[in-house]
């Protein structure tokens, strides 16, 4: 025993020294590769006389962007064009996530339904949608929009103030009025009030056991306050009606075919995955939980709210956020059907300025920002809902 212990280990067999040696090797390889690529790139850029750096962002863009949430014209800078693109990405992602959550939950629950027809249909939907590339789906919806709908002159008009044609969906919106700003403000106040009310009711129930009908009261506040403000301003009812002028519609609001095709494709595709996530989550809660909750006398709404959902959500939320992130990343396919999202605007910028490295780096940075903030949220949520085990 003693002989073994006193035997000197040669330094090349010492795991610590070996570790340092390996890491030094990796750093050297990495540094060499980086140096090689950078020097090649600099040489090539110099040869093609392309300037590096982000100064091109301040130059005039000289291209139009199809749709924009903020005012933009071709006289604005590349920087502003990119902001317009990023906002469009956010717009598609926001509405896409909302609709996907609705549709996905609906399909997922239908899949679990005891009704054979409904559950088979939901299964068929998820199977078909999951197995067709999303890009193909986008092309399909775009083609359907373009080939099946008539030109603006023969637009379909199913409801007064709503027009469907191959220029998009045009619908009437309330005419701009001073009341709208205050209605939005009151909605914000109502949401905040509902939030505080919920906290107060929770605390009271925990200490005194008294129940408070929080759902109906907050629904009343959130719906009621803006309506009251609207009535206070004399209930402005004027609508901005779209009308055919020349080859296109004037007035109202327009959803472009690109936007609709993108939204439809993304939502239908991602909803299939969300449905699977929801189904797995609900199935992960064992039947005994429902039975136990029933046996202590909870009503079915309470069983769902207090017992099933908190447990199912713990399983559902992590994969759900990654699906939401997938939707956001897939929205970059907009470039294929011509919706001006961030990637599409950046692509145009690259083609015009030749600043390919900066352009691709910008794309990557923007999406990394989205995904890092999502994973920050995920970590926070996981910590909050983690089972505290004894």
């Amino acid at each position, binding site marked *: 025993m003693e002989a073994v212990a006193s035997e000197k280990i040669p330094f090349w067999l010492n795991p610590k020294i070996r570790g340092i040696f390996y890491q030094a090797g990796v750093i050297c390889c990495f540094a060499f590769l980086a140096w090689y690529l950078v020097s090649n790139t600099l040489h090539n850029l110099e040869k093609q006389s392309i300037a590096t750096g982000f100064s091109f962002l301040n130059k005039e863009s000289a291209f139009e962007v199809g749709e924009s949430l903020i005012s933009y014209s071709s006289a604005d800078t590349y920087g502003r064009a990119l902001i317009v693109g990023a906002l469009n990405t956010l717009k598609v992602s926001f509405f896409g996530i909302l609709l996907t959550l609705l549709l996905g939950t609906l399909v997922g629950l239908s899949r679990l339904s005891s009704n054979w027809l409904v559950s088979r249909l939901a299964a068929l939907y998820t199977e078909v949608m999951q197995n067709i590339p999303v890009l193909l789906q986008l*092309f399909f919806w775009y083609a359907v929009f373009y080939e099946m709908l008539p030109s603006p002159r023969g637009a379909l008009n199913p409801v007064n103030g709503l027009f469907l044609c191959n220029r998009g969906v045009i619908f009437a919106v309330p005419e701009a009025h001073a009341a709208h700003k205050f209605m939005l403000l009151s909605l914000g106040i109502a949401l905040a009030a509902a939030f505080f009310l919920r906290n107060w009711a929770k605390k009271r129930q925990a200490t005194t056991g008294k129940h408070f009908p929080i759902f109906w009261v907050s629904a009343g506040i959130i719906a009621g306050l803006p309506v009251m403000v609207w009535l206070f301003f004399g209930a402005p009812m004027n609508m901005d009606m779209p009308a055919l002028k020349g080859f296109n519609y004037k007035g109202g609001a327009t959803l472009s075919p690109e936007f609709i095709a993108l939204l439809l494709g993304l939502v239908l595709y991602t909803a299939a995955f969300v449905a699977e996530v929801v189904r797995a989550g609900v199935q992960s809660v064992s039947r005994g939980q429902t039975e136990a909750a029933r046996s202590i006398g909870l009503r079915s709404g309470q069983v769902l709210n207090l017992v099933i959902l908190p447990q199912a959500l713990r399983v559902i939320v992590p994969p759900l956020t990654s699906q939401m992130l997938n939707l956001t990343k897939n929205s970059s396919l907009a470039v294929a059907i011509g919706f001006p999202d961030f990637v599409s605007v950046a692509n145009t910028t690259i083609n015009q300025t030749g600043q390919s490295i900066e352009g691709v780096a910008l794309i990557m940075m923007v999406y990394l920002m989205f995904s890092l903030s999502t994973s920050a949220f995920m970590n926070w949520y996981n910590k909050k809902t983690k089972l505290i085990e004894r």
Partner: protein
Amino acid sequence: MSEIISNTKLQTLKPPVTNIGVLGWIKANLFNGWFSSILTLLTILLLWNTVPPLFRWAFLNSAWTAGGSVCREIDGACWSVVVNNIRFIIFGFFPYDHQWRPLIAMLILFGLLGFSRNRNFWRRELVYAWMIGLVTMGILMRGGFFGLETVESTSWGGLPLTLLLSVFALALAYPLGVVLALGRQSRLPVIKSLCVVYIELIRGVPLISLLFMGSIIFPLFLPEGVTINTILRALVAMILFTAAYIAEVVRGGLQGMSTGQYEAADSLGLNYYLTMRLIILPQALKIVIPPTVSILISAFKDTSLVVIISLYDLLKSSQTVLSNPEWMGFSREVYIVVAILYFLGCFSMSNFSRKLEKDLDTGY
């Protein structure tokens, strides 16, 4: 006590007719309560309004061989856009007289895939068969040997290109992904952080940004005078992308291994390489076969993105048909056929993964 015992034969009552057989099934599965009944009726109404018109469009009123001008007269589907252009849709710009070559290459691939489905064939010989098969496919596509005319990769396209991209992207991304996963689990901080940064960076960005990188920036990285073709550049982007996802899946398998396995290997005196090769990876990779197949499915679907950097894969070659004035406006038919092709590929893979999951489930 004797009164209880009776010798007369009891009449056996049949269950009510509404609770057994077809009627019973319908009652239990379709009209189980008022909510379910309403749901069933609404669903039937919906199907009644959609399926018959769709059927009429697709089959009764459709044209299968007629030319484009005839197609515009009818109000059904014009499948002839696919029938008349099937060779272009499948093979793209591959020289017409040589299209038997990619066809045979694809048949070899399908044969190999069919063999690989059966777990009894999972032996060393299968690996050799794959290697020989891939080389043969390469020779068939490229030519230049055995009197075959050389076909430059710029004219490869259609389904062979889609399959080529997905097979090679996966075959090369898999080892890279395993290495990255091992690196992420490493105790050496430099290696670990490099792998973490790589994996998170790639998983945070959309594939399209990597494809852009491959097609625009990659040429800048290379020394002067060296160029590589567009297919290879797209392939590199797809490999880099897929590897990060495989790494995460494999990491899940590695984390599923109990420390006892590592300790047992250590106590046998195995070094790191042998521990991984003989003890950890065989078990870890087996657990993660089902999620790996789903990565394979998404890689297969993601090959369609090369359309955006103008490679002529299946989707792009079908779009090219649609830009022909004779066939303009029949996108739905073409896209439906392409969707069916993709669906068949993905569905057979996901079926396989389900079957494997069942086979590999040892119950503990």
